[in-house]
């Protein structure tokens, strides 16, 4: 399946900005099941300086600075991405979750050094005993890894209510866990925290979700905005995707942009401005199949 994606971000500032530096992570990365065919990033006003590079996790990023006085900043990307069906492992035949966790116990097997990055606390995700207890309901002894992950995904979907007003990007997961409400970002963080709390590596994926016109079908939540979900490392298979917001295993309708330890590693646009005062932000995303 090939998609054309248009992602617009517009900032309007109450006071003039004399100088701004931004990092954008908007370019869909290539994965084993995804190929990027085309990508353009337009910025208004035109930045004085702009540089694309690859970050620590291999995501494509664009650093730019606007050095003229401006009161509005517009970032528009056009991406064309071909997505083939992601791996769907048969839950029952995957290894028991403890077998995977054991690989990361001391001493660590050299072949899992790369996934090992994703087992530790990160700026927005902290493992805890409470979350470990919650996760163990899905990860009982000898449960196959993927079966456990599917169950966890389902439980987050059932136990937590999607509520775009309950949280902000700064809400800690402890609070999300207590309130049982949040948005896709919170649910991805929560899933990651649960997995790490039982010793499994997990990473955060930011991306898009193809949406369908509501003809008879229930419309998937997260439409026309950036979406987020998590991945779990399955030894011998690789990273597998799970979307707790929609209780699905992403296949052809999830488009990966970037991944990292949590949202703070992959924030689509982050900036530091001189001046600016209060700002309003408008984001719109259109995902169309080509």
């Amino acid at each position: 399946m090939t998609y054309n994606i248009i992602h617009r971000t517009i900032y309007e500032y109450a006071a003039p900005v004399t100088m701004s530096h931004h990092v954008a992570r908007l370019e869909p990365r290539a994965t084993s099941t995804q190929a990027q065919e085309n990508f353009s990033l337009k910025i208004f006003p035109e930045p004085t300086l702009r540089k694309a590079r690859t970050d620590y996790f291999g995501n494509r990023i664009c650093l730019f600075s606007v050095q003229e006085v401006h009161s509005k900043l517009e970032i528009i990307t056009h991406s064309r991405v071909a997505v083939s069906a992601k791996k769907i492992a048969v839950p029952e035949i995957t290894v028991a979750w403890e077998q995977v966790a054991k690989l990361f116990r001391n001493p660590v097997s050299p072949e899992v050094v790369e996934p090992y990055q994703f087992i530790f606390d990160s700026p927005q995700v902290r493992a805890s005993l409470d979350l470990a207890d919650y996760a163990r309901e899905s990860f009982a002894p000898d449960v196959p890894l993927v079966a456990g992950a599917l169950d966890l995904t389902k439980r987050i979907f059932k136990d937590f209510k999607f509520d775009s007003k309950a949280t902000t990007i700064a809400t800690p997961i402890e609070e999300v866990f207590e309130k049982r409400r949040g948005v896709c970002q919170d649910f991805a963080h929560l899933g990651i925290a649960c997995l790490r709390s039982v010793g499994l590596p997990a990473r955060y994926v930011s991306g898009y979700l193809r949406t369908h016109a509501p003809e008879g079908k229930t419309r998937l939540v997260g439409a026309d905005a950036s979406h987020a979900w998590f991945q779990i490392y399955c030894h011998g298979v690789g990273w597998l995707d799970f979307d707790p917001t929609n209780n699905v295993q992403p296949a052809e309708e999830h488009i990966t942009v970037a991944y990292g330890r949590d949202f703070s590693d992959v924030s689509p646009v982050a900036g530091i401005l001189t001046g600016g005062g209060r700002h309003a932000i408008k984001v719109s995303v259109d995902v169309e199949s080509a």
Partner: protein
Amino acid sequence: MIQSQSQTATGETSFAKKATPEKLLAGYKPAKGAFDELLAANGEPRPHYAKLIGALEEFSPNELQHRADTCQRLIREQGITYNVYGDPRGMERPWQVDPIPFIIAPDEWRAVEAGLIQRATLLNKILTDCYGAQELIRTRWLSPALVFGQPDFLRPCHNIRATADTFLHFYAADLARSPDGRWWVISDRTQIPTGAGYALANRLVTSRILSESFRENNVHRVAGFFRETQSTLARLAPRPSENARVVMLTPGPHNETYFEQAYLARYLGYMLVEGQDLTVRDNHVWLKTLSGLERVDVILRRVDDDFCDPLELRNNSMLGVPGLVEALRAGNVTVANALGSGLLQSPAFMSFLPGLCRHLLSEELKLPSVATWWCGQNTAREHVLKNLDRFVVKPAFRNHAQNFDSEKPFASSERDELKRQIEFDPDLFVAQERVEFSTAPSWDNGALVPRPIGLRVYLVASGDGYCVMPGGLTRVLPESDSNFVSMQSGGSSKDTWIASETPVEEVTLLHSTNQNVELRRTGNNLPSRLADNFFWLGRYSERADATARLLRSALLRFNPERTGSALPLLSPLLQTLSTQGQLPGILEQPELSQNSEAFEAELLAAIFDPARPGSLRQIVDRLQMLAMFVRDRTSNDMWRGLSQLNEGLGGSDTSRRRGVMLAGDAVGVLNQTLLGLAAFHGLARENMTRAQAWRFLDMGLRLERAVYLGTLLDATLRSPEADNPSVLEAVLDVADSSITYRSRYNLLPHVPAVFDLVLLDDKNPRSVLFQIVQLTQHFERLPLEREAARPDSGKSILQECLARLNNTDTRELATSQENLSASKVGNAIQQTLRDLPKLSDAIAAAYFAHSAISRTGR
């Protein structure tokens, strides 16, 4: 026969009574089981201490005490302080120095030196690998958790090539000596090795009070280390180093070691800047100065690495420079220590060092670390859990979220919870053996006593290796059983002497050169933040002066027996103090005119009450704080003058706090305060070069003086008693113009003449016009006002004020007796008073304008 005279024959060799060794060391009883630096096991002083002890024994007890007192006095005078967080008594605490230096024997020092050079080399190699190839992780020499699991591993800094492959430009190690006499490293300081400046301060103080011993012992100089620091930093500049600009980046005056930062910046000759003084444009770092942007090549940082760039590192940092990491990647600037070097400050690395040393350097580790078990390793964890009581358990990593004090061990009462935590996330914990400290002689009320000490030693990268400061910061621990050293918890410090067998070379920090020196008449450009501080320093110094004069005049003219009738005569003074905030609304409280005691109490509170807004005491406090902000740009004399002002107004004097203070005493204090301020202003006028700093200081002073004089003159014209000679006397007194008036007129004060002298006489440094003329002249020499300045620029405001005042004639005040304040003179004064705040705003907009930083995303 020649009559010979022999001195010995008279038996009068010396009149000085020698303090016997027994006396000086009588109370010196080292605890059993600890290593004592002074006394060997047989109870005899060790040879390398012999000269010092010998010299001390020569002194009489009085002389010894005098030298110890001098030590304290020098610290106070130099203003050597340490900030203690959350101290309600004010943050600045005098630095504690024990006058008795800690001496290390030369051969022993050579071993320490070699061990530390090896260690710094090793740590630098580890950092280079962690931020590059990460081979050590792949080949299992390092556990990946130590790097990937640490918040101090800064991923955005991975693969940024360090200049000359040096990450660790500065390194310090904390050492302790065990009972068997061996030195152990108890912590590695790789992030920002603090304290070298305090070591320098200790040296300056101690070498002065014990100058004879200092020479006799051939103590190695520390200046060479700082000269090496200068050349290392100059070498780091990405562009040819001739014009390289090095700045020291500080978190600001509230940081615990701000004194040290200002002290070192001045000593090394670098500008001390805050993050907001720098900006990244075109991937280069620039300093924002009054006349534009100036390029920065090297940043010596005192800001933690993760705070250095809010764009790519910690996004809530207000201390850093957005875009710095990208400027580093582009190779346009060097930061020392390299961003990310805090990684190795984790004590967990200690248990890996022996193996890594063999692997990377093919050598045995020369200086051992205190025995450390990192719970991320199975065998270590089991050992720790079984022997929890024997160890000090610490967080392995600096924990951002919970803000652990990484130095502080856990309390044993939390043991069960601790066990649970270790089992849940073992990577986060290390256990260390309790550190044992040796004892060294310390001064304690006239005697030498053994006190536990720790030693911090400093290294700087130099060429292809490291150079060790011969000496260091010896810290004296408050209690003998304390097992961690932190200045926050109190304690004292000492100078550290490395004695030499041969005379040592004198070192100076000033470069001598055979080449022709390019002569300069201007120094570095002033950052706008500092211009702002100097301007307010000027304003507050004059505010203190004017307030003290007004209050003194009021107190001198206040007669408790005739309160009611005297008040109208005081009203211009009181009105001025009311308008300016020292005695708000005082004239609207008629009951005060009947109650002389309450009235007097009000006046005294306006002087002494530190809690009262606008009081002289508060103004002086604020003045001192502003002086601290520009500490690296003002002389010690100016600083000392201001410190004494504060003491004069009595922070700690309890009798004043109890309110036992007579009006007469208060006048004395005000006289002292005015003298102190005069000294400060005199130093500013006579000792500061006519550069931007002085200009802004003087502009602040002029503006404030014009405000106070204008307010007083306005209040006088509004008073029904304006022509009362007693009222006019007070005006002349406050404007310090009585003598001039008398020499000119030989008359009772007369309104037109007084106003001519205090408002319009451009020869009188205390007239309003004089201030306006001076301000106009300053403006002509400033860099052009920024375009952002409003249409009513400072220059045009001043021109109008000047024209208006030049067009007035105070003789009209003699004829229009009815409503003086409605006269042309009155109007001119009122208009000037309206213009002055606008002038201040215009100056701020044109030269200081700091825009707030905001952030989006994340």
